């Protein structure tokens, strides 16, 4: 009974989560609850399990032990072997958890608009989308998303002709177009210069606020934390070692914890 109650208020609810890859433990006994509308930063050294946590939430990594509910869906039930029903559930879950990943993850040879339209894939499953033919209202919505991130001018451009910052804005437009209640971001400002990084962060936070979405964001640059999040979770070697509110001196405190 109580787990059902938690599921209704918590967007992400993990209890005693273990994720392993062969011999190596990627996540060890991770328990955390993220409520709807929260903005959470995840920090830690390389290999601390930050990306694994995001991959587990979107059912890309298998949960070996423990409980994980995302938007009320029990992710641990979606283990192998998958059948038609659990495949559908995984797709449904992923359609409600948008992702902005690090680096180049758009299809460079497709146009910017085509890349944004992919965000609506789960809504329009017709085989016509295989030929990149989308319904008129989807195209309209995708153009609106592009306009929101200030990239409407680039709709017809080839994506690999854009700069890193511009691509990251397109990635945010794809997530916007996906219209998911949860947004996962994995170092969205990695390899961007300071100016572009500022722009991407401002965009990300304002978009999340407008949509009343939940943001979980892996952050490398600790100085970014106060501008992105209101809560920080620190991981070390697959374990949660701190879970604190963001305050004025947070960057210094985090450096102390991570030392």
């Amino acid at each position, binding site marked *: 009974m109580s787990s059902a109650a938690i599921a209704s208020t918590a967007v992400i609810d993990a209890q005693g989560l273990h994720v392993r890859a062969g011999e190596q433990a990627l996540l060890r006994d991770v328990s955390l609850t993220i409520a709807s509308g929260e903005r959470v930063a995840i920090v830690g050294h390389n290999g601390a399990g930050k990306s694994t946590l995001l991959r587990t939430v979107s059912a890309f990594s298998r949960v070996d032990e423990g409980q994980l509910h995302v938007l009320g869906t029990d992710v641990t039930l979606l283990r*192998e072997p998958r059948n038609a029903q659990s495949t559908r559930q995984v797709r449904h879950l992923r359609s409600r958890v948008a992702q902005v*990943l690090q680096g*180049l993850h758009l299809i460079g*040879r497709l146009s910017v608009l*085509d890349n944004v339209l992919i965000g609506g894939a789960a809504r329009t499953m017709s085989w016509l989308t*295989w030929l990149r033919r989308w319904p008129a209202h989807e195209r309209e919505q995708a153009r609106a998303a592009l306009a929101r991130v200030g990239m409407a001018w680039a709709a017809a451009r080839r994506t690999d002709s854009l700069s890193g910052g511009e691509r990251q804005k397109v990635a945010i437009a794809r997530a916007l177009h*996906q219209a998911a209640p949860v947004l996962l971001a994995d170092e969205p400002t990695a390899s961007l210069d300071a100016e572009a990084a500022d722009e991407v962060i401002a965009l990300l936070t304002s978009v999340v606020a407008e949509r009343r979405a939940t943001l979980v964001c892996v952050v490398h640059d600790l100085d970014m934390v106060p501008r992105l999040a209101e809560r920080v979770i620190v991981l070390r070697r697959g374990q949660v070692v701190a879970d604190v509110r963001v305050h004025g001196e947070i960057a210094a405190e985090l450096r102390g914890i991570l030392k």
Partner: protein
Amino acid sequence: MSGDFARDVVSVTPSVAAHARTPMRSPPRVSALWLLLTACALLVLTSVWTLAAEDELSFGRKPWQNLQKTVAEMSEPSFLRLWFGETRHEIRDQDGKVLRVDDQRATERRYLAGVGRALWTTLRIATLGTALAALMALPLGLLAARTLNAPRPVFWVAKGVLDVMRSIHTLVFGLFFVGIVGLGATAGILAVAAHSAGTLGKLLAEAIETLDTQPVDAVRATGATAGQVFFLGVWPAVLPQYVSQVLYVWEFNIRDSTILGLVGAGGLGLLLSEAMALFQWGRLATLLIAIVIMVIAFDAVSRAVRRRLV
């Protein structure tokens, strides 16, 4: 779709494994290299020794004179007769009686027209064979790409078919198809297609396997269906590579199909074997020049197109 989880986990592990293993690797040992070189040297020596013992290493009785003769004969390509041939070339018997008067220029003109037709046939054989191969390689290559996770038995069958097709030479396929569909271009087309489908299928599978997984995972992360992941994520990224590979194999097939005629599968090869059998070195020289020009021209075009593709 059933291998989804396994694949996802696999795509996470390499970076983790790299962290764990990099310092452990020992430098390569020198003795292994020497062992290999010694083995190769032994193999070479054994080959020379045994072939010599079987008297298979002879250069014939007068290699030097033969070479000079052949070079001299081939240095006068027959097409020069178009301009320098005698219009009244008399062919006599041993007693000096005139058997026939030949207009060498007209004869050569007819022969070159024949060469032109054969070139055109060769070009068509290579083109249709490659087109057919490109179509056949598509399903086989997709099924044989490890990362697309076709059911195991299907994967192995596709891989096996591709390996068999690739390991049998076009000429051998030519002999095989001449036996089935008879002499002519059809056998040539099928032979080119059968061999090239193996090559193209393998190249396609490898292109898919080495694809950057991030953009594909990003499409999957939107909740897209397997079909959408393939057509929106995989296909646009592989297409230019595949087209470039098809062009490359096409180029290769144009060279390859010049000898298909040797086994009766149509095209230039027939004229080649005829010229060689009749010791018409001048005509052989003309044919070789024609082949070289065609191949160079096609290489240039194909390379220019491929450079603009990616």
